């Protein structure tokens, strides 16, 4: 009897940090944001409840377009991160020697030790009109005029891929490491070409890692703020920037909260659609044991 109580107590105590974290830092703020988003401002310090903030969002094309643009660019970044990250992950997990594996993994991690801000400035120093790349190209005579590579959507995408690629590589490595080399050998022995082995054996095996990595990178990209703002140019709106503007520049917490809720719902919808289209589910990929 005593033993069972003690067991239950230790379970509760062990569970507590997790419950507090989820409750206080995730659920409660979301509820607060949801509450504020349903508040309509009718005058100074006068509020009513209703869906006016959501109606405003739908009726203003700027906000809709920015959200769609953000989602579209985030999908692009996710795809590019997958294409660039898969070979790296495969090399670390399957080709590299066990001894160099840790060192390679560490090299992928190192950029993460520097803050986003510094990394964005790194790109600025490289890509600006009087920056390293442009100056070098002029001095070796490849181009006659300095060129501006900053302030375009392309720069934003490069910067974002660089920022998030690690979150694609890590789940891929851990999935691929579990793959038995015998599977590949069997594939080749049965007459499969490299492409067939890749398509029929490696990709299906890596699917949990691909799905997990894609979800993480997509969410991180859609919610990023610094990189798009610093590298983006005069035409590059990003949805998080709109949220910042609503909260800070316009003192409009109601609209900002509405945008926050919509961003969460919309990105969740995109993830769900992605799972549906690829025929995957969370249970068979991310939560697979």
């Amino acid at each position, binding site marked *: 009897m005593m033993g069972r109580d003690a067991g239950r107590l230790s379970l509760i105590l062990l569970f507590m940090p997790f419950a507090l974290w989820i409750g206080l830092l995730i659920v409660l703020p979301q509820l607060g944001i949801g509450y504020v988003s349903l508040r309509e401002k009718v005058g*100074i*310090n006068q509020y009513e409840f209703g869906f006016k903030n959501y109606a405003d969002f739908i009726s203003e094309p*700027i906000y809709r*377009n*920015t959200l769609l643009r953000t989602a579209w660019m985030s999908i692009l970044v996710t795809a590019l991160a997958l294409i660039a990250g898969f070979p790296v992950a495969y090399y670390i997990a399957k080709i590299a020697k066990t001894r160099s594996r840790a060192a390679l993994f560490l090299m992928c991690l190192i950029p993460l030790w520097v803050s986003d801000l510094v990394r964005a400035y790194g790109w600025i120093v490289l890509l*600006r*009109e*009087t920056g390293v790349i442009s100056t070098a190209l002029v001095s070796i005579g490849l181009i006659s005029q300095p060129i*501006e590579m*900053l*302030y375009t959507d392309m720069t934003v995408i490069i910067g974002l891929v660089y920022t998030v690629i690690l979150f694609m590589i890590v789940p891929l490595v851990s999935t691929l490491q579990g793959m038995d080399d015998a599977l590949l050998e069997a594939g080749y022995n049965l007459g499969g070409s490299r492409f067939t082995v890749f398509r029929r054996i490696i990709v299906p095996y890596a699917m949990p890692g691909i799905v997990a990595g894609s979800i993480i990178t997509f969410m991180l990209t859609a919610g990023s703020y610094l990189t798009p*703002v*610093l590298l983006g*140019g*005069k*035409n590059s*709106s990003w949805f998080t920037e*709109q949220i910042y*503007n*609503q*909260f*800070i*520049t*316009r*003192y*409009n917490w109601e609209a900002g909260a509405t945008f926050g809720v919509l961003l969460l719902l919309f990105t969740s919808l995109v993830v769900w659609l992605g799972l549906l289209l690829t025929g995957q589910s969370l249970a068979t990929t991310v939560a697979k044991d």
Partner: protein
Amino acid sequence: MTSILRTLLAGTAVALMAGGAQAETLRLLTWGSYAPDELVQKFEEEYPDIDVEVTFSNNEEMIAKLRATGGTGFDLAQPSHDRIYAAQLEYNIYKPLDLSKIDVDKMTPNLVEGVKANTTIDGEVYSVPHQWGTSGIMANVKEAPDAKGWGDLCSETYKGRTSMRLRRTILLGMGFAMGKNPFELYADPEAYQAMLDEVTDKLIACKDIIKTYWTGGDDLSALMLSGEVVLSETWDSTAYKIYSENKDIVFIPPETGALAWIDTFTIPRGGQADDAAYKWINFVLRPENVTIMSASTGAIAAVPNGIQLLPDDKRAAVEAAFDQADLDNLKFFANIPPGLEDMEGIALERIKAASN
């Protein structure tokens, strides 16, 4: 077990109280460069029982932070004079000043009166001036010798070589350049909206001309010093700093008048160190400290000989930029009525989202 716990708790409490008794903390919420280390150290030497903690911010974030906490968390804030009235009315985040504790007689009388007029609510004064400066344009005179006003930022002559900050200042500047007086339209939301619409169209057409929108002083300095941009909207203080590195880059008060702001001292409603705050206010306005402060901020202190007290390089820059006619033509930002910033916000978003 419980006795150990109790001892520990008691020990902690004693330590906390002792800590509290030894040092009072003055939590400043101010602009980047408005609390230079040299001055903070000097202050802490003079008042060993006060610790100064500095948080750097800007007008919008100051209001947002204080609104989020109901005016607590900071003991002294420095919003600009036009951003206090509406924020106080709507969010009640400041408390009235006790003017008897401030050396008001050492400040420039017309600035004190101006700030008082802007920040008096129900007979209570909420702010006194600290430093003032202007917004205008800055040009590299070798490449853009003829720039005179806000409108030149959108001139075909400088295509791809101009910059501006996409905030309310440029809306107002462009309004003046188009022959309006935005400050007089503040009271009439419809007329103001009509002006905003015109300015929005102008600035959308202007996107072809400008290279990029700058977002902060460092960003702007890099654009100007590298020569990537030859003409830009600017704060005068940033222009003065650049002038000390490259004498070709000067601040130009626009022909319609430079837009003048006054950063103030204002005490948040939940401030817990009012006396320390008053000490800081009086301390930084002493002549010997004004020079240290202005060397860091590039702005002019609200004391009668503020320009003379600038460090030499900054004074040279100010004298190169302003003559008496420019000073007489200053347009001080008028109090922003509640709701106006929402209208401006949507205009700014339209400009940012438009592509051509």
